[in-house]
């Protein structure tokens, strides 16, 4: 659409054109009031993008305010590109998680790839060098061809971006459930490191300072991506295909190196990546945060296509672009710096004192809007919240044990469930060791990288069992945080902070909003209890297919410090003869369990109970034991319970087995998903010390030299299988499903 054909202010009102851009009548009126006149087409576009859920958090803000965001280590909480946490020695860790669900539903390879690219820019725009990637994925159960395609392509997309730019993926998670069929969730998390003095912010201050645009050219791709990602995607009516914003990891690598050099320069005032809502959000937010204005001449914006309008340029979501504010008079040295990396950088405007975002194009002022109105004064909604009927019903249901006739066959079948099966198929496609700092690659509880030049490490993980969140959002929210912390603890790390990606259905549905609120409450409580404040995050609403919301999926990304790399601990058994302990007893917890889903084809009942006090004590004691050096291997019990965890420990490279004895009902003892439990192996000589340190440890058996997993119950043998057979079933399951037809 060329400028000539652009509707005028009156047509926008008469034909309610703002609705096509995702604005409600009330929101448009609000914009008119703030502006004191009727907005033109470009201005309407600015408002609609900035007031989309994705940019403004208008529905989620009131809920997000509940998160604990402060702590002794926190240097930067939510509000910037990424959060920052002190790790000592003048260094800090920077991290953030982002969703790329909508684009990934349409074109999974590009959607997932640009997700990784975007979150990396969030991290290096803070001045930090990205050191690791983590991801969290949700797909249908792979019985449908479209879901298999989405899964394969999304993984390949993440791999392509991360591998090409040379940043290792060290952890991740994936859950398969048909509530995500055709509506996958693709969340990417990036972790970076910086020295305190290099911390940057996205601000545009100092009248007369210059605005520099650096990176890729602006095209017509991804226009209205921000509004799109806040709406349900109806997949593909031909001819209506949106233009995808493809990623260029090669360019991003150059841009990253240039930006990391630039942060050392005192010419730099502020820097921000052009993410959702592109040039609009970066310019408005940088001005608003600093309390200044920004004037840009759009003629100067590097354009990929001919005849682009102001509207198109401002709303494009072309990838690999940064907006930078530099001191007046220092422009050329910054441009030269970029040019030494073959990156195009040009001055496109200047900082003003009038707090306006003013845009010039072809010699005319094409937009003039208060930066605060766009970035700060978006509407905030107190959405209606209502407890769904299913919740009461499930809470009242009687707890039952799923019916199982053959324990061994059930264990084997569980090991082949894609959610439990080996994730090698995924992480073998990632360069997990690039940059030579990966101490634990994917395959154990958390990924660990060393902080070079120190004896410290950083552990990271992403977790969320959305079935529990669905059955009981508050409890499920707590469990997500607790599980992430358990994975760090088991790796020898002390949790320090959280990023999140809150993936939900439409917030206009009171039941969905209730899930959102309740899970946020659970997350908050657990973060407080476990000492891990929320420092960054992302909200993705409207994840629905045909009006049915996905399970509420508030993914938790957590980072911990390994105070000394000698504490690093992994899942797999280390030596025959080691004593096996389970921490915590099993109870009747099958609501939302993998076994329930497998045997009944659906989930119901109550989510497992979690007592955060017990959780905190057990985590602390186990970490102490690990730090004392008396733990050989550790893992938490999650999907599939004790039997599955035991197998995973035996599936290591050492070829060891186990013999254990459990008591009580066999199905509960083997498969219950009771919370706050761990499985740990300890050298015989350290058994006494371990029992002293970890109060709730129960000795259940030993690690054996043999190729067998034997689990005895009160009345004889429950499981007696070979490691070889079980391992093969677990290892090949995802590939097997992908080979299936239909």
């Amino acid at each position, binding site marked *: 659409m060329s400028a000539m054909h652009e509707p005028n202010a009156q047509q926008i009102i008469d034909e309610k054109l703002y609705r096509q851009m995702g604005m409600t009548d009330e929101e448009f009126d609000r914009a008119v009031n703030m502006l004191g006149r009727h907005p033109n087409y470009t201005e309407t576009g600015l408002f609609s993008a900035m007031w989309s859920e994705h940019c403004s958090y208008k529905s989620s803000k009131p809920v997000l305010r509940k998160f604990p965001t402060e702590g002794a280590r926190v240097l930067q909480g939510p509000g910037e590109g990424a959060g920052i946490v002190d790790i000592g020695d003048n260094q800090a860790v920077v991290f953030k998680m982002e969703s790329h669900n909508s684009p990934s539903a349409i074109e999974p390879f590009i959607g997932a790839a640009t997700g990784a690219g975007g979150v990396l820019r969030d991290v290096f725009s803070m001045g930090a060098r990205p050191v690791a990637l983590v991801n969290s994925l949700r797909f249908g159960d792979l019985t449908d061809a479209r879901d298999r395609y989405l899964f394969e392509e999304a993984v*390949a997309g993440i*791999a392509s971006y991360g591998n090409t*730019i040379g940043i290792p993926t060290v952890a991740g998670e994936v859950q398969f459930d048909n509530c995500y069929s055709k509506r996958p969730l693709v969340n990417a998390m990036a972790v970076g490191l910086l020295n305190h003095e290099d911390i940057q912010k996205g601000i545009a201050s100092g009248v007369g300072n210059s605005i520099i645009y650096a990176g890729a050219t602006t095209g017509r791709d991804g226009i209205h991506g921000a509004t799109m990602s806040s709406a349900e995607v109806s997949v593909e009516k031909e001819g209506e295909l949106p233009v995808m914003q493809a990623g*260029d990891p*090669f360019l991003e*690598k150059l841009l990253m190196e240039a930006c990391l050099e630039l942060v050392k320069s005192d010419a730099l005032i502020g820097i921000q990546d052009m993410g959702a809502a592109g040039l609009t959000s970066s310019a408005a937010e940088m001005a608003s945060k600093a309390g200044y204005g920004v004037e840009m001449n759009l003629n100067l914006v590097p354009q990929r296509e001919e005849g682009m309008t102001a509207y198109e340029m401002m709303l494009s979501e072309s990838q690999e672009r940064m907006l930078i504010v530099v001191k007046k008079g220092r422009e050329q040295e910054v441009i030269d710096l970029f040019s030494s990396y073959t990156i195009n950088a040009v001055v496109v405007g200047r900082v003003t004192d009038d707090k306006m975002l003013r845009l010039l194009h072809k010699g005319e002022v094409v937009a003039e809007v208060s930066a605060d109105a766009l970035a700060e004064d978006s509407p905030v909604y107190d959405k209606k919240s209502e407890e769904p009927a299913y919740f009461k019903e499930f809470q009242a249901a009687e707890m039952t044990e799923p019916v199982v006739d053959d324990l061994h066959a059930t264990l084997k079948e569980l090991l082949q469930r894609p959610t439990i099966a080996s994730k090698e198929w995924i992480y073998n496609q990632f360069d997990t060791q*690039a*940059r030579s700092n990966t*101490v634990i690659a994917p395959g154990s509880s958390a990924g660990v990288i060393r902080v070079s030049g120190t004896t410290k490490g950083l552990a990271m993980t992403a977790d969320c069992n959305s079935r529990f969140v669905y059955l009981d959002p508050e409890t499920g929210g707590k469990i997500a945080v607790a599980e992430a912390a358990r994975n760090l603890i088991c790796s020898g790390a002390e949790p320090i902070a959280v990023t999140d990606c809150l993936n939900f259905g439409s917030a206009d549905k009171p039941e969905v909003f209730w899930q959102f609120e309740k899970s946020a409450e659970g997350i908050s409580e657990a973060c407080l209890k476990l000492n891990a404040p929320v420092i960054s995050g992302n909200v993705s609403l409207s994840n629905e297919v045909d009006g049915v919301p996905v399970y509420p999926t508030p993914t938790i990304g957590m980072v911990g410090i390994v105070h000394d*790399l000698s504490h690093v601990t992994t899942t797999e058994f280390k030596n025959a003869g080691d004593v096996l302990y389970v921490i915590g007893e099993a109870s009747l917890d099958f609501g939302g369990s993998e076994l329930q889903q497998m045997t009944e084809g659906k989930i119901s009942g109550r989510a497992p109970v979690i007592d955060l006090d017990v959780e905190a004590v057990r985590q602390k004691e186990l970490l102490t034991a690990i730090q004392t050096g008396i733990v050989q291997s550790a893992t938490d019990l999650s999907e599939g319970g004790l039997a599955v965890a035991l197998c995973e420990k035996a599936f290591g490279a050492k070829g060891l087995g186990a013999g254990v004895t459990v008591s009580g009902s066999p199905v509960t003892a083997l498969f219950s998903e009771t919370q706050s439990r761990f499985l740990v192996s300890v050298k015989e000589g350290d058994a006494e010390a371990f029992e002293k340190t970890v109060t709730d440890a129960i000795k259940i058996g030993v690690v054996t030299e043999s190729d067998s997993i034997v689990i005895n119950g009160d009345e004889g043998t429950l499981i007696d299988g070979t490691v070889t057979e079980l391992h093969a079933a677990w290892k090949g399951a995802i590939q097997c499903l992908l080979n299936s037809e239909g």
Partner: protein
Amino acid sequence: MKFAILVFPGAGCDVDLFHAVKNVLGYEAEYVWHTESGLERFDAVLIPTGATYGDYLRPGALAKSSQIIDSLKAFANSGKPVLGVGNGFQILAEIGLLPGAFLRNKGLKFRSGNTKIVVDNTNTQFTADYQKGQELTIPFAHEFGNYYVDEDTVAELKQTDRIVFTYADGNSDGSTASIAGVVNEQGNVLGMMPLPERAVEEIIGGTDGLPLFNSILKNWSENNVCHA
């Protein structure tokens, strides 16, 4: 002994080699940017892995347009050691310092992890510290690791004993004759897909790559005793 580590645009893993050579082995190492020319002041040149130029067109291909290439060829012709790992190997093949070319992995996907390779030739300045037939565990990470040479060339490589490493575990991604590493005719240019620089510390990747770097150093010391 002084190592040059070439840095092409987009290379991600120059840091891996630098860390191995400088921090772990304690040798002198310097990054050399692709726009420079002249490598005479170095005793060995290392070409890292990573996706130079985004692996666009063909992995290693766009590096041909870099200014440093002429100096690299001159350096190789002078007989001093050149080692290209991963993408570095692909670049050496593209510019003709080593035979062959690279196809997409047989399984069509990027693969990474550890692989087992056998040392087939200890008669090179890169492998003198290994035993013939020794099996090594070395990390790898590539999408185009499927090394192709035609029949005549394989025969020639075998005859002249230029196949230095072969895959031992069937994880060859389709490489002709399971070749994991080859040298040029003069024996001073080695290309290999597995990444020895990621196997120089116990805590990360093991130490099976150490003897490779030590071999280079030993050979250099023997030949440069009088300058030492």
